[in-house]
């Protein structure tokens, strides 16, 4: 089973990379970009029997740093 984990910075946490990307987009002439936040996508291929609890634990213990990041788990349909 394919699982996609999206790790994003929490609201209020400064994202210098997102800001640099924002500036670069403006530099390329794209207007109307209000904000950019950079995150990370981690794709897992796990046994079908993997529980939600186990996936949650993977995120909390390693994939995301709960001090600064949120995560969202998407199971492939």
């Amino acid at each position: 089973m394919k699982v996609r984990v999206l790790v994003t910075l929490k609201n209020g946490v400064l994202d210098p990379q997102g800001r640099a990307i924002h500036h670069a987009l403006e530099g390329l002439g794209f207007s109307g970009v209000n904000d950019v936040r950079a995150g990370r996508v981690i794709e897992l291929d796990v046994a079908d029997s993997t529980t939600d609890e186990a996936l949650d634990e993977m995120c909390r213990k390693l994939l995301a740093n709960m001090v600064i990041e949120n995560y969202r788990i998407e199971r492939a349909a």
Partner: protein
Amino acid sequence: MAFTSAVITFPGSNCDRDMAVAIEQVCGGTVHRVWHGDADLPDGLDFIALPGGFSYGDYLRSGAMAARSPVMQAVVRAAERGVAVLGVCNGFQVLTEAGLLPGALMRNAGIRFVCRDVALTVENSQSLFTAGYEAGQRIVIPVAHHDGNYFADDATLDRLEAEGRVAFRYAEQVNGSARDIAGILNERGNVLGMMPHPERMIEPAQGGTDGRALFESVVRSLVSA
């Protein structure tokens, strides 16, 4: 008892030798070199140092992989027993990822890698790592990092300040760290994480000796304890 210490080397550590030399020269005693895959630490350790570098290529997040390596479980147990633990630069990132220190070290606010001497203020001169300094003393120690921007929520920052756990503060703009924090202590005071590199300022040939007092403090605190 002779002073016994260990320097941990992760794949990608690059300041481990400098750290071992600094400890040998200033603290003396026996310095063990320990590999990240070792599940056990040498017996009778007084002091453990986690060096700077780019452990595991900074994969996932700086320090994230190293914090889950076998040796770190032994380091966490040693810290809980009261062994003095110093993490410098990547070592500081590893300590926060391992949960031994609060907060996180994020990408520098200015995006760029910062590599230069910086002025610090010694905020707490009572700890086992800083007793050799004067409170408020201005010292110069080099930094070399990309992810040194200290972040914690306001409640955590207030608590660190109230409990005197901010050991060093930047005396100039360096990386956007919350409240200019350069180094913090754990609650018990036996774990210090800091981004600047004291091991790079121990003899005049390195351009200064402001880092010596940190290692002198450790050996003095532990010998008199």
